[in-house]
C-alpha cells in the first residue's frame, strides 16, 4: 500500500511538472475557473435574496455545499484527472500502455493526468466556504475531511460510468450526461427532493455524498454523518474497483474493442 502511495506521489509530481510547462495557461485557466464558479454562484445569491429559505435550506447552506462540490471536483481533476477520460482511453486501446507496466492499472491510469482548470475549482471551494459566514478552524478540518470523502465518491462514480466503455464502446455520451447529472444534483438543495428521489441521490447518482451529507458534517460534527460518509465512500469505491476489473478482464480477452490484428 505504501509502495503505491510513493508511486502516486511521483506520478503527481510528474503531472505538476507537465502542467507547469504551460504556466501561463495553467494560471489563466485556474483564475478563469474561479471566476466561472463565482459568477455562477451569484445567481443563487440573487435567488436567496428574494426567497430566503427553501424548506429550511438557506444561502449559508448553499455556500457550503458549493464549496464541498467544487473542491471535490477540483481534487478529482488534480489527483485523478484521467477519471474524466477513462472511457476514451479504454476505447482507443491506450490501456495497453498501463498494462505493460508493473503498477496497479486503475491507479496508474487515473493518476496519470492533471485536468487543467481543476486547481481553480479546488481553490474556489475553499473560498466559498470562507464566504459562508459559518467558517471556523474546526469547521475547516471537517470541510477538508468532507472534501476528501466526496472526492472518493465522485472519482468512484466516474470510474463506474466510464467503465461502461468496456462493454458499450463509446461511452462518451453517457459520461458527460452522468457528470452533468451528479454535479447538478449535488449543488441543488437536497430539501427539494422527495423520499424516492433522495434514495436515487444516495444509491444511484451519489450526489448526496458529494454535497448535502458532507455539508451537514461541516455545519455540525456528528458520528452518524461521518459514518454515513465513510460508508458511501467505501461502498462506491469497492463497486468501482470491482466493475473496472471486471471490464478489464473483458478488455484482455480482446472482445471489448476493435483490436488490430
Amino acid at each position, binding site marked *: 500500500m505504501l509502495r503505491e502511495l510513493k508511486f502516486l506521489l511521483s506520478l503527481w509530481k510528474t503531472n505538476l511538472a507537465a502542467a507547469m510547462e*504551460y504556466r*501561463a*495557461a495553467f494560471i*489563466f*485557466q485556474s*483564475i*478563469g*475557473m474561479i*471566476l*466561472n464558479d463565482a*459568477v*455562477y454562484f*451569484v*445567481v443563487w445569491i*440573487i*435567488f436567496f*435574496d*428574494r*426567497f430566503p*429559505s*427553501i*424548506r429550511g435550506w438557506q444561502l449559508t447552506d448553499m455556500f457550503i455545499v458549493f464549496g464541498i462540490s467544487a473542491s471535490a471536483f477540483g481534487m478529482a481533476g488534480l489527483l485523478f484527472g484521467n477519471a474524466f477520460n477513462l472511457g476514451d482511453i479504454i476505447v482507443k486501446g491506450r490501456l495497453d500502455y498501463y498494462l505493460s507496466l508493473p503498477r496497479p492499472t486503475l491507479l496508474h491510469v487515473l493518476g496519470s493526468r492533471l485536468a*487543467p*482548470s481543476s486547481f481553480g475549482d479546488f481553490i474556489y471551494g475553499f473560498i466559498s466556504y470562507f464566504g459562508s459566514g459559518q467558517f471556523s478552524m474546526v469547521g475547516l478540518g471537517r470541510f477538508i475531511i468532507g472534501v476528501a470523502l466526496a472526492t472518493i465518491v465522485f472519482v468512484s462514480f466516474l470510474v463506474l460510468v466510464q467503465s461502461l466503455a468496456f462493454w458499450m464502446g*463509446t461511452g*462518451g*455520451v453517457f459520461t*458527460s*450526461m452522468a457528470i*452533468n*447529472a451528479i454535479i*447538478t*444534483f449535488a449543488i*441543488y*438543495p437536497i*430539501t*427539494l*427532493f422527495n423520499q424516492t*428521489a433522495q434514495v436515487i441521490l444516495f444509491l444511484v447518482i451519489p450526489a448526496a455524498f458529494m454535497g448535502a451529507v458532507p455539508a451537514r458534517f461541516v455545519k455540525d460534527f456528528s458520528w452518524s454523518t461521518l459514518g454515513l460518509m465513510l460508508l458511501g465512500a467505501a461502498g462506491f469505491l469497492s463497486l468501482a474497483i470491482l466493475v473496472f476489473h471486471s471490464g478489464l478482464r473483458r478488455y484482455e480477452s480482446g472482445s471489448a474493442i476493435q483490436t488490430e490484428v
Partner: protein
Amino acid sequence: MKKYHAIFKINLLNNLAYPAELVTRSALILLFMWIFFQLWSITFTAAGSDNISGLSLHDTMWYLLFAEILELGRPRLARVISEQVKDGSIAYLLNKPYNFLLYQLSSGLGESLPRMGLLFILGGALVWTMAGPPPDLVNWPLALFALAGAWLLHFCINALIGLSAFAVEEVAPLEWIYQKLVFILGGMLVPLDFYPAWLQTIAKSLPFAYMMYGPARLFVRSDLQFFIQIIAGQILWLAMLGSLLGLVFSRGMKRLAINGG
C-alpha cells in the same frame, strides 16, 4: 446562397446520423426541467402566492424551458472555431469559395435546429405534465422571431470568442464566463422579473437580456410593446457585435496572411 443551404443540410443530416449529442442534450433538458419544477413549485408554495412579479408557476416553467432550449440547443461554435484557429485548419477553410463566418453560421444552424426542435418536444412534454399546457399559440410567432435574433447574438459572441484564439491560448475560460453571464444577466435560472429593480436595469442595458430573457419572456406573455423593445435591443446589439465581429475577423485574416497560419 445555395451553397450555404447545402452546408446547412449536411450538418442537419450529420446530426441525425450521429444521435449521441441529441440524446445527451435531451436527457439533460429533462433533468433540468424536473429539478427546476421541484425548485419553483416549492418556492411558490413558500412565497404563499400564485404569482410572483407577474409570473405564475406555469409561466415560470415555460419560461425556463424556452431558455434551456436555447442554451442546450445552440452550437458550441466558440470551441470549434478556436480549434480551427489553433491547429491552422482555418487556413484551409478560408481557401474555399465561401465566407468563413457564413459557413459557420449555416453549419451551426443545421446542427442547432433539429436539436432545439427535439428539446422542445421532449422538454415540452415533461413540462406539460408537470405544470400544464404551453402558452397560447398567439405568443409563439413573436417569441420565435425573438429566438432567431437571440440565436444570432449568441452566434456573434461565440464567433468572437472563437476568433480570440488568435490572441489567447485557451478560450475555454472566456466561454465559461460568457455562459455564466448569460445565466445571470440573461435570467436563465431565475427570470429577470424576480430580480431587484436595480439589477434588472443593469441587465437590460447589456446584450445578455436580449439573448435569453427576451424570447423566453415573450413566449410566456406576448405584448407588442415588449416585443418591439426586445427586437430593437437585438438589432442594436447585433449591429454592434456584428461589426465588431467583422472587424476582428478581417484583422485575424490579415494576421493569418502574414504569419502563414
